[in-house]
Each structure stands twice: as structure tokens, then as C-alpha cells.
């Protein structure tokens, strides 16, 4: 028997240190997010010895928002990871493939048309997300077994543009919805309360578990179509399961916070950079990183433009869009 090679040991140490840093980042992000907000008199010190006012502010206003930010990071990060795995495309994410916009469309239909309203906004968002995902994959040829990288991205952008136009169309017809137009186009959790946060967080743990169950299939897809099939995992089944997972997580997120772009794109890349390509490790890593990043984004959204609060989605896009540009210039497989 050979002893553990030094390289593996070093990789293990790096991985352990990264995991510890990640947990630290989540904790720091959570504390920062909790200690900032509209009431500047409730600060970091009040986290540990709150008086009555501070306790109310913390438990009724800040805690649900902080938890929502973390759960959005988890949901969107896992959704992005699943999409990048099943499409084998580094540019895939809920926003780029039109899935977020599809969810927004489902939501808008639920508000405007009574028939769809009966289905419930959350389920409509999931259905819209799923429909958009299937449509994009069909355009890319994914169900024929061969996904065209360029058609996937351009098709997704077109599906997203269409859904978005229809969403704006419904805004135009309904004055009541139009007032919150920014919220539904950028993504915002400023006024979130416990009921919405609980709806969101209810899906985060099942989402992580489902992604863990699928992680081995994701690894097989990464080996290539033929290898995956040879090892007993039909890539088309993985494609469908991954789409369902991404649609549920993105749909729920959009129904609570509106479409937040680029979180689902950036987080999996960072996780791969830190933890390598094994999806069994990537799933928890993405969950942790997504939570940490969105907590930081939430805190930034409160302090960056104070006293006005910027929606968290605007902060995420401001960070994520240049990243996408950089990826687009460098990504392989488009020549």
C-alpha cells in the first residue's frame, strides 16, 4: 500500500482551510448584514445586548432579510451549478438561460389572469421557470442529445428577452403591479418579512439534498455523453432532473425576491476555483459561498448608497455582469 501522496495531502489542507474561511465568511456576512440597516442607531453592539427597540428591529426587520439573502444565495448558486453541469457550459445560469425571466412571467400571469391566479404565484413561477428552461434547451438541441453551446446562450437570451417583454406588457396593463416594477425586474428583499423568508428557506435544504443526490450524475455528465451513458446515467435524464431542480430553486427565489441575475453564474465559478471540479464537494461549497456572497451583497446594498437602499439584485448585477463579460471573452467552445 502506498501512503497518501503529498499532493493529495496539500490539496486536503487547502480544501480544509477554504472550508473554514468559507464558514468564517458566512458568519461575518451574517453579522454585518444584521448590524446595518435603515435605523443607524441599532448597530453591531446591539446584536449581543439588545434593548427592546433593538430586539424588535433585529427580529422583525433584519433577521428575515438576512436569512432571505443567505437562502437566495444557496438557491440561485445551486440552480446555477446544476445548469452549468447539465449543459457543460460555463456561461449557463438561471438569468442567462431565461429561467429567471420565465419565472417572472409565470408570476406576472398569476397576478393578471384569474385562471393562473388559482394555481398560486409560487407554483406559477416554478412552472414558468421550467417552461423557459425546456424551451431554451430545445432551441439548443439538448433533447436530441447534442447541446450546441452557442445556440444555448443566444437562445436563452432570446427566451429571456421575450419573457421580459411580456412581463413589461402586463405591468403596462395593471397599474397596481406597475408601482413595484423595479422590484420585479431587478430583484429586491428590502421589505421582506418572515412569511416570505420561510417560504424561501423551506426549499433551500431540500434543494441542497437533491443536488447532493444528483451530484454523481453531474460528475458523469462532465465525462461526456458517451462515457455517461456507458456508466449507466443517461445524460438526457440528468438534463431533465437538473432542469427541474434549477426551475424549482430559481422559481421560488424569483417569486419571493424577483429575478436576481448573475449570482447563479458567479458562485459556481468561484467554488470550482477554490474546491475543484467534483460535484459532491461543489454542492456544499456552492451553498456556503452563495450564502456568504449574498450576505455581503445585502450588507453592501444597505451601506453603499445610504441613506437610499439599493436592491440586492442591483448590487449582484453590478458585480456579476463584468464577470460574465470576462468569461465571454475567455470561454472555450464557441469557435
Amino acid at each position: 500500500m502506498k501512503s497518501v501522496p503529498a499532493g493529495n495531502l496539500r490539496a486536503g489542507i487547502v480544501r480544509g482551510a477554504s472550508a473554514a474561511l468559507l464558514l468564517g465568511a458566512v458568519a461575518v456576512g451574517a453579522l454585518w448584514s444584521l448590524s446595518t440597516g435603515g435605523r443607524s442607531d441599532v448597530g453591531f453592539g446591539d446584536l449581543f445586548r439588545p434593548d427592546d427597540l433593538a430586539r424588535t428591529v433585529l427580529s422583525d426587520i433584519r433577521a428575515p432579510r438576512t436569512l432571505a439573502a443567505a437562502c437566495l444565495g444557496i438557491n440561485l448558486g445551486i440552480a446555477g451549478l446544476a445548469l452549468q453541469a447539465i449543459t457543460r457550459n460555463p456561461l449557463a445560469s438561471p438569468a442567462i438561460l431565461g429561467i429567471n425571466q420565465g419565472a417572472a412571467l409565470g408570476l406576472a400571469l398569476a397576478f393578471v389572469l384569474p385562471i393562473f391566479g388559482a394555481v398560486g404565484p409560487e407554483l406559477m413561477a416554478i412552472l414558468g421557470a421550467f417552461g423557459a428552461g425546456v424551451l431554451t434547451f430545445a432551441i439548443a438541441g439538448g433533447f436530441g442529445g447534442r447541446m450546441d453551446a452557442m445556440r444555448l446562450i443566444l437562445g436563452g437570451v432570446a427566451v429571456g428577452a421575450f419573457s421580459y417583454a411580456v412581463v413589461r406588457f402586463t405591468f403596462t396593463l395593471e397599474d397596481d403591479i406597475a408601482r413595484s416594477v423595479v422590484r420585479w425586474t431587478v430583484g429586491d428583499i428590502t421589505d421582506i418579512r418572515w412569511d416570505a423568508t420561510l417560504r424561501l428557506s423551506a426549499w433551500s435544504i431540500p434543494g441542497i439534498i437533491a443536488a447532493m443526490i444528483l451530484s454523481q450524475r453531474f460528475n458523469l455528465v462532465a465525462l461526456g455523453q458517451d462515457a455517461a451513458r456507458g456508466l449507466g446515467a443517461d445524460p438526457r435524464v440528468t438534463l431533465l432532473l437538473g432542469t427541474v431542480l434549477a426551475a424549482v430553486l430559481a422559481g421560488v427565489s424569483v417569486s419571493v425576491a424577483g429575478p436576481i441575475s448573475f449570482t447563479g453564474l458567479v458562485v459556481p465559478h468561484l467554488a470550482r476555483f477554490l474546491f475543484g471540479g467534483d460535484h459532491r464537494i461543489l454542492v456544499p461549497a456552492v451553498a456556503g459561498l452563495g450564502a456568504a456572497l449574498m450576505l455581503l451583497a445585502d450588507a453592501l446594498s444597505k451601506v453603499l448608497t445610504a441613506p437610499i437602499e439599493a436592491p440586492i439584485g442591483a448590487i449582484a448585477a453590478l458585480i456579476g455582469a463584468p464577470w460574465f463579460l470576462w468569461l465571454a471573452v475567455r470561454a472555450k467552445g464557441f469557435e
Partner: protein
Amino acid sequence: MTRPLRIGLVLLTGLIAAMLVSLAVGAVAIPLSVIVNTLLDLDGPQQDFIINRSRLPRTLLAVVTGASLAMSGAIIQALLRNPLASPKIIGINSGAALAVLLSVVLAGGVPLGFLPAVAALGGVAAAAIIYILAEVRPVSPARLALVGIAVGFTADAGVDFILVTADTYDISAPLVWLTGSLWSRGWSHLGAVAPLLICLMGVCLLLSYRLDIIRLGSAQATGLGMHVRRARLVLLTLATLLAAVSVSVVGVLGFVGLMAPHIARLLVGGAHRTLLPVALLVGALLVVIADAAGRALVPGIEISAGILTAIFGAPFFVFLLLTREIEARS
């Protein structure tokens, strides 16, 4: 009479008919006889205010901007040899929108006369990124579209950030404008951009034969005595300016610059001396129809023209994606 000329005349007739319809529909429907009376100042009932103050300038603006976007798209598609290219896809529209919005936030808005210049600056900056990439390191058309989309996303992120952090009073106007709308556009807007756009389009029409020569390939074009790089640069700059200046007054009318050249190519083929004028008519027709339909669909409510062009344009884009073979190399 040649076929392109016949098609051109049919389109021109259609455009005039669409303009009359556009004058007639809206919150208050106006009969044709009243329109003719008003326009020609004849005896009989007139509707001076609605037609001359509101609907006539915006209809003319729809014609000019639609034609500009279509011509911009046709030139960009030809030079990049990319059927999926358009001013929106390569980020010009979003860059111009960001520049205009920045001028509102940072400088409290610029006088209307300078707005086209600000928008042009933003459009050229966005386009420069794409062009530099295409010139320095030859890339596939697909990659170019991808990078263009990414540039557009980045500019859009800036637009969103400004919109949501600005004071609510300031943003309501840009919000309407950004969806691509001719709502409340008047003679002053038309005056600010129309002379410039018409001049630019005239120059493009004069240069259109160069597009046909460039299509022969670099070697042939050089052999025919043409300075290919310079011609490309001039034409791309003209195309960028056409799109960016249009955006400065009507916002982002998505997909017009993509659809119009393709429809024109189906009608008269790929020779640019005939393609450009026909694309121009098609683009004008599309925007006039979108604007009129936006007013007519639900009386009393305005649906932005940009929403309608996107609802029809996005499926059209997917159709192109599925049917056109993308040339492998630019």
C-alpha cells in the same frame, strides 16, 4: 420596372398607409377625413392639437428612428458577417442608454440638443470594445455576439443600479423611455435627431456599394483599389452613430435592427445598393406599426413600442438561430 423598385414602391405605399393609421388611432380615434383636412389645412373639421402637437411628430420620429435602426443593423450584419448581429445584440443600445442616464444623474440632465451626442458617446464606447476584439484577435461571429451581449449586460447592470438608487421623481421618465417608447415625444425631439440621422443615412446610402465590394473578400476589395480597413471603420462608426442617436430619443427598441435587414433580404436579396433602402423602409414600417398598435390595442393605455418589437423580435431571433448556418469565421 425592376423588382426591387416595385417592392420599394409597395413598401412606401404601405408606410404612408401605416402613418395615416398611426395618426388615426389612440385614446381619441380620428376619422381619415379629419386627418386629411388637418394635414392639408382644408376647410371642414380639423383636429389641430392632437395631430399636429402629438401624433404627427411621434409618427415622423418612428419613421426616422426605425429607418436608422434598420440601416444600422444591415450594415453591422454585413460587416461582421453575422446574421445574428444587431445594434442591440452588440451592446450599442445599452451603452447609449447608460450614457444618457448617467448624464441625467451626474449632470442633472443635458439640454435636448446635446442628448444625441451623449448617447453617441456611450454607443461608440460600447461598440469599441466589440470592434477592438474583432480587429485585434479574429473571433467567430458567435463569440462576437456573446461578448456583445455581455457588454450589454454590463451596461444594463449600471442602468438598473442608477434607476433603483436615484430619487423616485427623477427615474419615472427614464423608466418609460428605457422600454423603447415614443410616448410624449414631440417636435423638439424630432428636431434634435432627425437632421443628423437623415444625413447619416444619406452617407450610408452613398457608401452602400462599398459593402458589396467588402463582401467579395479583403483581397478582391484591395485589388479594386479600396482601403478595406478604413472603409470598415467608417461604416461601423456610421452604423453605431445611427443606432446610438436613435436610442437617445426613443430608448431601446429591441430587435428592429435585427428583423428589418432580414425581411429586406428575403424581399430583394443581398446586394446592399438595393438592400439598404428597402431595409430602411421596412424598419420605418415596423416601428410605425408597433407604435400605432401600442396605442390601439388597449384604448387609454399605452403599450411601449419596444415591448411589442421584443415580443415579435425574440421569436424571430430564435427562428434565425435555428435556420441560418452561422458562417464559421469572421
